[in-house]
């Protein structure tokens, strides 16, 4: 589902990592590890196309990542950043529904019952739906964003510290849901040890770091 071939990422003359190659097969759950500042979040952003790669190619769902394929690729992709900041006034329900209004997602149907059942799976109160999204706690924002991604029927999830603001009980609930779904491919940056242990594969960025450019 995700394939990186010899990718090198640099900001100016500072190389973040070089010649990194890996594959994520369908259903695989991968943890990206490495010291802080080793470029873990940058790797996610490179796979999203936010940060351009200086060298190498990236394939997502068998398609090369480029502006022409972006729309098709994004139909399969969900990204949840560490801090989901939305400064505009928007209720939680409207936040969840927003991607359903996008033209690219016209064929996906919003099913309210499915949303409510995901809410209870992730221990979210139904009452939150009418709250302003920015009033939620960090952990609630992350879980609401997860609900949105699952409702959108995405297949590839890129998580940046998705459990960073969650207690262990909620982390385990989310893990049980994600790790039991074989149709979901996941690449995650995480510092949560139980999460990393459960991942089927680990990518350590340390060997790919450029030692010269600190």
């Amino acid at each position, binding site marked *: 589902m995700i394939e990186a071939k010899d990718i090198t990422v640099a900001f100016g003359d500072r190389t973040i990592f070089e010649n990194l190659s890996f594959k994520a097969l369908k259903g695989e759950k991968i943890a990206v590890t490495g010291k802080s500042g080793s470029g873990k979040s940058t790797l996610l952003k490179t796979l999203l*196309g936010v940060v351009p790669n200086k060298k190498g190619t990236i394939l997502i769902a068998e398609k090369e990542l480029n*502006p022409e394929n972006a729309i098709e690729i994004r139909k399969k992709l969900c*990204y949840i950043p560490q801090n*989901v*900041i939305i*400064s505009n006034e928007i209720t939680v329900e409207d936040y969840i529904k*927003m*991607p359903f209004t*996008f*033209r690219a997602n016209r064929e996906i149907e919003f099913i309210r019952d499915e949303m409510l059942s995901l809410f209870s799976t992730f221990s979210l109160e139904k009452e939150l739906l009418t709250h302003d999204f920015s009033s939620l706690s960090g952990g609630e924002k992350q879980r609401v964003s997860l609900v949105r991604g699952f409702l959108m029927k995405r297949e590839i999830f890129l998580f940046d510290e998705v459990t960073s603001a969650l207690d262990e009980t909620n982390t385990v609930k989310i893990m049980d849901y994600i790790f039991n779904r074989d149709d979901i491919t996941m690449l995650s940056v995480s510092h949560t040890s139980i999460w990393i242990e459960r991942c089927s594969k680990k990518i350590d960025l340390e060997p790919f770091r450029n030692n010269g450019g600190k």
Partner: protein
Amino acid sequence: MGAADISNGGMILAFSALIIPFAIFMILGIDLYKETLISVIRMSVQLFLVGFYLTVIFDYNSPFINCGYILLMLCAASYSLIRNSGLKMTMFSHVFPALLIAITTVLLFYSFAVFENDPFYDAPYFVPVAGMLLGNSMSRTIVTLERFYSSIKSDNDGFTASVIMGGSITEASRPYLRTAYKAGILPYLAGVATTGIVALPGMMTGQMLGGTVPSIAVKYQIAILLAILAATELSTILTIIFSLRKGFNAMGFLNEAIFKPKKGSSK
């Protein structure tokens, strides 16, 4: 027809207004004498210059000179707009056409249809009205443009998540546009609503000082305020739309290269 001239003595007395801030500076121990003097001198010199070249423009009353002068104003306005929005000058080629279309559309419509100027480019109307439309549009457009890009920048991860969810640039940025647009129009509407009660607009006051009867001056003022409304909304929205091509990259993400590096001296 015109207003009575102000004598040289009168003009000198007008500058006695400076005594008040200077007295306050002295009492409070604030050293802003030089700054105040410089800005007042600048204002006076600029206005005398305007008076000089407007006389020339009015004398010639040529469509080419009038339009050329408006184009020059549009260039200066685009430059100042970008500078004050915290963006780089590379935006010029996107902002200039937006202002050009917005201002000329409204200006031509009001000149032909509302004021029925003959010729339509008649300098005493055409040039000052263009200036009023542009001046008012600029301040509103600055607020909206600055807010639009700075709020997307500060929510960048959330915005990126929306784009990844399949949102086009217009779809993903619409909530930000809505907020930015509201931030600009609300104070403006409050200002318009109090016009005539709290403040007598400058143009109307000027016309009456020039001898126009209040009932006519009021009609002109209403028409001008509506022209400003049209020009302002049009410039705001066109500037945002035209800027999108530069403001976002081919992948639909925010192009951070549009922002002027912060030095703490903007605004």
